[in-house]
């Protein structure tokens, strides 16, 4: 599989989509849709083409800046492949979810979506730290535009906040990357940004600890974890539907991916020392995110805070340092991609119909739009962690593994699933149940287009919930290679 | 002969004060010429005849005349004197003087030390010229570029002014 071509293809599709607006206003979204479908098929074919137990599905090395040991070094291992496939899938969802929402500058909109996704694919497959940082920034700027141009009433505030948080934390990571390269250069006399070589760099433990912290802060800001989560509710609330879907479904996962791949992968010992703090932040995110979600009255903000809670499971799972918990973190990433993307799509659909995200202006919508109600119910239930659906597998594994590592924190995190029930059901109640709000007139229920994507995501979640083995098999070699102890 | 220096110095100071405090631009320019000429005398007395000549020719001759041209073009008449009086309230002098007087005193204090006499030797145009086109050649070139840039800039600014004037007429 040619990853470079995939990334460049998405970039190129973005440019073509932007240009095609001159031909027809609706041409960009079709181009974008086709691009993501092709990307999904291409990625899946690589998956299906490889035998089971494959550790690397593709590897590509192209020269870039040889003086500084910088290469275009792209690798798809199981974890990357899974996330790249998820990216392509959610790309489709994002395009469909804003099918009729965007009324101006269609071309540039799809351009941004495609470029974000290209950047994300790059992030998931780059094994050269410089290249990784490059893609990290590439995905940031189109996202900024998505929020700042097509966002809602308070968009520039939200976009700037998003940008600053990510940028400042990215700066920390850049600093950590450069220091790592420098220290490696001092030790070996070779300048390299190669992941595998830097992994073997012998570092002073103190230095490694600080460098790990640089990566850690960058990734938990993206994840996000308490206490650096506050950009997320604003960004989600203000972003257009496609933006929220991408943000929740994919961009947050880059944080989780980064923690696994870089914070833990590059500095296993330092991360071990740091494990309790990581788990603490995870548990804190779970409880605090859930609690904040309950206090919101804005549909999107509520879901955004619930994302914080779900991302806490990732942190908890990764820093429990055992296979079960880490697999839980990985499954949570995928399942959360489905469930939260669907909820944001729902929020977008409601906003399009009601011109509001306030839950107080909803109520009794089930009567008016039973299909929307049923879909929301399904995804709320998924997000509450119902067994048989993907989120449960992830959260259960994370907690089960975490319990082996740290009992009190796991108990605290388990309380989070009670809180999840509180906010999830309260969302359902306030939006869809109760007396129909008299201010809401007739609203259009979901049509075939929306139902198709919703059902796709439902199938995804059920599949993850009853037979997650495919995902587990994909990530197992990666987790083993991290040197995480089995149980 | 030394008294000549002090006379020139006092003249320079007095005329300069009149420049700064004056209300009529043309008069102020005349005082400025006086001041510059006094300084030229001092240059001469310090043994720098070439500098003195340049002071007279370029400063008093060219630059100040340029000022005069502008004053004439802007046609600053009686009204402008009245406006100056309005702009120049006595109280406005306080704050700047609070700054400049200490600066003056400080500088004087800093520069005073054991009394040193100037060499009293003449440094003629020839020496200056050899130096100028020897070690300082690069600086001369740079100064030339600066003047060229100023020329272009002044032309640009002035041309638009003139063309607009012409349209009005």
């Amino acid at each position, binding site marked *: 599989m040619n990853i470079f071509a995939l990334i460049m293809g998405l970039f190129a599709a973005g440019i073509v989509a932007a240009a095609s607006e001159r031909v027809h206003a609706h041409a960009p979204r079709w181009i974008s849709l086709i691009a993501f479908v092709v990307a999904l098929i291409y990625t899946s074919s690589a998956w299906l083409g490889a035998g089971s137990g494959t550790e690397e599905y593709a590897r590509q090395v192209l020269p870039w800046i040889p003086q500084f040991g910088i290469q275009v070094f792209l690798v798809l291992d199981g974890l990357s492949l899974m996330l790249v496939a998820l990216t392509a899938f959610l790309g489709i969802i994002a395009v469909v979810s804003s099918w009729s929402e965007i009324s101006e500058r269609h071309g540039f909109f799809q351009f941004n979506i495609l470029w974000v996704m290209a950047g994300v694919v790059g992030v998931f497959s780059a094994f050269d730290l410089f290249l990784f940082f490059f893609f990290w920034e590439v995905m940031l700027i189109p996202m900024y535009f998505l929020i700042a141009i097509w966002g809602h009433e308070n968009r520039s505030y939200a976009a700037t906040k998003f940008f600053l948080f990510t940028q400042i934390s990215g700066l920390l990571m850049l600093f950590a990357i450069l220091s790592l390269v420098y220290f490696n250069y001092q030790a070996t006399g070779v300048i390299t940004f190669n992941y595998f070589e830097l992994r073997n760099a012998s570092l002073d433990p103190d230095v490694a600890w600080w460098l790990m912290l640089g990566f850690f802060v960058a990734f938990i800001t993206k994840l996000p974890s308490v206490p650096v989560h506050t950009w997320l509710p604003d960004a989600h609330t203000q972003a257009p539907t496609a933006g929220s879907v991408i943000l929740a479904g994919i961009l947050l996962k880059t944080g989780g991916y980064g923690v696994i791949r870089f914070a833990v992968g590059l500095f296993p010992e330092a991360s071990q020392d740091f494990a309790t703090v990581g788990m603490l932040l995870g548990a804190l995110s779970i409880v605090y995110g859930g609690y904040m979600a309950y206090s919101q009255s804005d549909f999107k903000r509520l879901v955004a805070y619930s994302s914080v809670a779900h991302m806490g499971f990732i942190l908890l799972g990764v820093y429990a340092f055992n296979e079960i918990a880490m697999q839980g973190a990985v499954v949570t990433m995928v399942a959360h991609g489905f469930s939260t993307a669907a909820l944001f799509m729902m929020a977008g659909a409601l906003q399009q119909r009601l011109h509001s995200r306030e839950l107080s202006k909803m109520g009794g919508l089930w009567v008016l739009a039973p299909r929307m109600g049923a879909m929301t119910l399904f995804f709320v239930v998924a997000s509450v962690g119902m067994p048989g659906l993907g989120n449960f597998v992830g959260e259960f594994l994370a907690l089960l593994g975490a319990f082996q590592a740290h009992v009190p924190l796991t108990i605290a995190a388990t309380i989070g699933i009670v809180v999840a029930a509180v906010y999830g059901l309260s969302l359902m109640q306030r939006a869809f149940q109760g007396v129909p709000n008299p201010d809401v007139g007739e609203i259009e229920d979901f049509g075939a287009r929306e139902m198709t994507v919703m059902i796709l995501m439902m199938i995804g979640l059920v599949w993850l919930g009853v037979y997650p083995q495919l995902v587990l098999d994909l990530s197992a070699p990666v987790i083993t290679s991290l040197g995480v102890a089995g149980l | 002969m030394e008294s000549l220096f002090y006379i020139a110095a006092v003249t320079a*100071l007095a005329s300069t004060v009149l420049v700064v405090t004056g209300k009529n631009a043309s008069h102020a320019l005349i005082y400025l010429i006086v001041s510059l000429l006094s300084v030229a005398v001092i240059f001469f007395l310090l*043994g720098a005849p070439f500098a003195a000549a*340049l002071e007279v020719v370029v400063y008093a001759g060219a630059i100040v005349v340029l000022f005069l041209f*502008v004053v004439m073009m802007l046609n600053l008449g009686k009204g402008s004197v009245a406006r100056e009086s309005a702009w120049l309230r006595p109280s406005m002098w306080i704050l700047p003087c609070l700054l*400049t007087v200490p600066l003056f005193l400080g500088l004087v204090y800093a520069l005073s030390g054991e009394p040193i006499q100037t060499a009293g030797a003449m440094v003629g145009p020839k020496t200056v010229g050899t130096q100028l086109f020897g070690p300082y050649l690069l600086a001369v070139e740079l100064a030339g570029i600066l003047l060229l840039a100023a020329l272009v800039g002044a032309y640009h600014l002035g041309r638009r002014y003139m063309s607009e004037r012409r349209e009005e007429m």
Partner: protein
Amino acid sequence: MNFALSIPLEHVFVLAVALFCIGLTGVLVRRNVMFVLMSLEVMMNACGLAFVAAGARWAQADGQIMFMFILALAAAEVAVALGIVLQLSRRFDSLDVDSANEMHS
């Protein structure tokens, strides 16, 4: 023929500093741009005087050379500045240095 006198260097410097400070006061006080420019000329001239005096102390040409550069600078400055003055009076019908201020603080 030598007209050069031996003058206490200090006195020349005092004169230069005095001229400089008078010029500075002018710059700070005057609102009329013409006077501001004249004051600037005074200040530059004072600097030139200091250089020449210093050159005269050692009977070297360098002081005069520096004076010539200051001269060039003054000429350039005046040329451009007067062009601006013309524009200023044309656009704003005023010679007030602050008349072109569009900042709101």
